[in-house]
C-alpha cells in the first residue's frame, strides 16, 4: 500500500505529461532547431545559419519596437483590465434583482472569438461612420481617428483586448469576493474603518491568490491571442505601432513565410515568458496572502 502510494502521483501525472511532452515540448524543441536555419517557404532548400536569424532580429529596428510595444500592451491591458474587472465584480457582488442576467451578459464578450471581436470593434471605431466616432462627434465635437493614428490605434486594440478579458476576470473576482467572510468586514466596521480602508486592507489581500492567477492568465492571452484582433483592426499599423511580438511571429510565418525568422522570434518569446515564470515562482508567491 505504502509502496504503491509512492507511484500513484506519477501515474496520475502520466497522461498530462505524455501529452505535453509529445505535443508541446517536442515541437518546441524542433522549433528551436528551425530557428538556426534559413528555410525556403516550401522547405525545399534550407541552410544552416547558426544564430544569424537572432542577430538579424536584434539588428532590425522592427523587432526591438515590437518588444517595446508588447511590453506596453501587456502592462496596460493586464493592469487596467484587472482594475476594471475588480471594480465591476465589486458592483456585481450584491443580491439585487436580475444580478444573474448581468453576470451572464458581462461574461459574453469572453465567449466571442478574438478575430470576430476585432471585426466588431473595427466596425464600431471606424472613422466618421462608426458608432463610437459618431458619439464623439455629437457629444464632444471631436473626431478621433481611432484606427489610423498613434497612439489611438494602440489604445483601440488594447480596448478590444481588455474587453475580451473582462468577462473571464469578473467571474473569478466575483467568486473570490464571495468567499471572503462577511465577519471580517463587520469587525472592521466596528473598528471604524471606511469603505476604502476595508477594500485595501481586507479585500485586496484576501484576493491576492486570485489576482496572481488572473495576472498569469491575462498575460498569456494578451501575448498570444490578441494578434487576431490586431490583424483585423490595424494590421499592426500605423507604422508598426501596434505590432506586438506575437503579431510579428504571425506575419513572418503566415504572410512572409520566413520560417527561420518566425521560429527565432518564437524562441525569444518563450524564453522571455519562461524568465517571468521563474520570477513568479521565486518572488511572486511570497506576495500572496493566505487566508
Amino acid at each position, binding site marked *: 500500500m505504502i509502496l504503491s502510494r509512492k507511484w500513484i502521483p506519477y501515474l496520475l501525472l502520466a497522461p498530462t505529461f505524455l501529452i505535453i511532452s509529445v505535443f508541446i515540448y517536442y515541437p518546441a524543441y524542433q522549433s528551436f532547431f528551425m530557428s538556426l536555419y534559413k528555410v525556403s*517557404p516550401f522547405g*525545399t532548400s534550407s541552410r544552416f545559419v547558426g544564430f544569424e536569424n537572432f542577430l538579424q532580429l536584434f539588428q532590425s529596428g522592427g523587432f526591438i519596437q515590437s518588444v517595446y510595444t508588447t511590453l506596453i500592451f501587456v502592462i496596460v491591458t493586464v493592469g487596467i483590465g484587472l482594475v476594471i474587472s475588480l471594480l465591476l465584480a465589486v458592483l456585481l457582488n450584491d443580491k439585487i434583482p436580475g444580478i444573474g442576467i448581468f453576470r451572464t451578459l458581462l461574461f459574453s464578450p469572453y465567449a466571442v472569438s478574438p478575430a470576430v471581436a476585432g471585426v466588431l470593434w473595427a466596425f464600431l471605431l471606424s472613422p466618421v461612420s462608426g458608432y463610437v466616432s459618431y458619439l464623439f462627434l455629437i457629444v464632444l465635437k471631436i473626431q478621433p481617428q*481611432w484606427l*489610423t493614428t498613434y497612439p489611438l490605434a494602440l489604445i483601440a486594440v488594447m480596448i478590444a483586448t481588455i474587453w475580451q478579458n473582462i468577462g473571464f476576470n469578473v467571474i473569478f473576482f466575483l467568486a473570490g469576493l464571495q468567499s471572503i467572510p462577511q465577519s471580517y468586514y463587520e469587525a472592521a466596521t466596528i473598528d471604524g474603518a471606511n469603505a476604502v480602508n476595508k477594500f485595501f486592507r481586507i479585500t485586496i489581500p484576501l484576493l491576492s491568490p486570485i489576482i496572481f492567477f488572473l495576472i498569469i492568465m491575462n498575460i498569456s492571452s494578451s501575448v498570444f491571442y490578441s494578434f487576431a484582433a490586431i490583424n483585423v*483592426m490595424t494590421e499592426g499599423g500605423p507604422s508598426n505601432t501596434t505590432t506586438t511580438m506575437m503579431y510579428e511571429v504571425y506575419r513572418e510565418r503566415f504572410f512572409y513565410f520566413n520560417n527561420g525568422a518566425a521560429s527565432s522570434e518564437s524562441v525569444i518569446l518563450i524564453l522571455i515568458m519562461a524568465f517571468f515564470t521563474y520570477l513568479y515562482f521565486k518572488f511572486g508567491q511570497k506576495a500572496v496572502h493566505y487566508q
Partner: protein
Amino acid sequence: MLRKLLMVTVFVILASVIFAAPITLYFWQGVGAAFTKPLQDLCNQFTALNPNVKVDVLYTGDYHETLTKTISAVQGGNPPDIVQIYDVGTQVMMDSGVIIPIQDMIDKDPSFDINTIIPAARNYYSYKGKLYSMPFNSSNPVIYYNKNLFEKAGLNPNDPPTTFDQFIADAQKLTVKDSSGNTIQYGFTFGTGQPIEWFFEQFLAIQDALYLNNNNGRTGRADKAVFDSPAGLRVLNFFNTMVQNGSAIVAGAGWDNARSLFLSQRAAMLIDSTANITMLLQGAGNKFNVGVMFLPHPSGVPYGGVIIGGASLWLINTHNTQREQAAWDLLKFLESTDAQAQWSAATGYFPINRNSIIKLLYQGFYAQHPEFLVAVLQLLMSTPDAATSGALSGAMPDIRTAVNNAFSNVFSKLMTPEQALQQAQNQANKDLANYNSLY
C-alpha cells in the same frame, strides 16, 4: 500476333475510357463563402461532362492561410491537386518545386489556345514567356463615386476626373464640414495595409514605371527595388496631399472601413477592387447612384495601365499522370468561354477569356452593367509591358509591408515622402536579398 496485340490495345483503350477508375480532385480555394457556390457550380458542370472526375472544393482560409496550408500539406505529402494562390504568392509557387507549370500541359495539348487568355492575365502569371498558372479570379482597382454627392457639389457626375490634379480639386469640392469645423463628408477614402500596398503598385503601372529591377523580375530574378522614383513619389504625394488638406480620410487597415465610409455617404469617392462591384451596388441600394471611373493619372506622364490582381490556379505535381490530366482538364474547363462568362456574371470578377468578354457584350450584360465594362476596359486598354505585368518576387509580401509603412509615416508626418520612400526601398532591398539567398 499483330491482330491479337491490336485487339488487346483496343480493349485497353476502351476499358480505360469506360471503366476508368473515378477520381476525386482536391481543389483548395481561398475566396470565401460568397464565391464558394459559383465555384462549386462550375465544378459540378465539369463533373457532368466528365462523370469520372469528381471535384471536392474546400475552403482553406484566406489567401495567406491557403498558402500556409498548402505549404504544410506539401511537406506532409498530402497536397491538393489544384490550389488557388493570390497574385503576390506567384514567385513563391514558381520556386516551390512542387508545381507543374501549366505551360508544360499547354505544350502537350493542341486543343488549348493560350491566346484566348487576355494578355494582362497571361503576362502576370508568366516568367520568361512561360505561363505558370491558370489565371482565374481577376480584378483591378477602380474609383467608385457617389453620383448624387457629385451633383450636390456642383460637379458633373458624367464627367469624372481623369488626372491627379482634377481628382484632388474635386475631392476638395466634395468635402463638407459642419458648423464646429468637423468634416462630416470627405471627398475620398481608402484603406491602408493590403489595399494601399496594392494601389501603390497600380499607380506606378499607370505611369508605366517599374517596381523592381530586371523588368519587374520578369527577365531575371529581381534583386533591387526601383520604386523610389519620381513616379513613386507622385503616388505618395497624390494620397498625402488629400490627407493633409483634409479632403481624404485614411479609413484604417483593410477594405471594410473604407467601404462603410463610402456606403454611408461619408466619403464621395472610394478606391477599391473591381471584385467588389456587386457588393457596393447592393450596399448603395436605392440610397444613391454608384459611378465607376478609371484610375486617374498624373498629366504629362506617359500612360501605362493597370496590373491584374486577384488569384490564379496552380497545378500541384502529384506524380500521378491520371490525376494531373484530370486537373488540367478542369483548369481548361474553368478557362472556357462559358465558364468564365458565368463566373464573371455571378461574382463581379472579370473574365480572363477574351471570348467570354465578347459573349457577355453580345448578351447585353455590359449594357446593363456599365460598371463592369469600366473594369474590363481599364485592363484591356493598358499597355502590355513589364510595368503593367506587375512585380514578381517571393519577397513581395515583406516589401508591401515596407511600402505600407512608408505611407503611414508620411500621413503622420513622421517623414517626408522622399525619406519614407527611400527607407521603404532600402528595406525592400534587404527583403529581396534575404529571399534570393535561399535559391
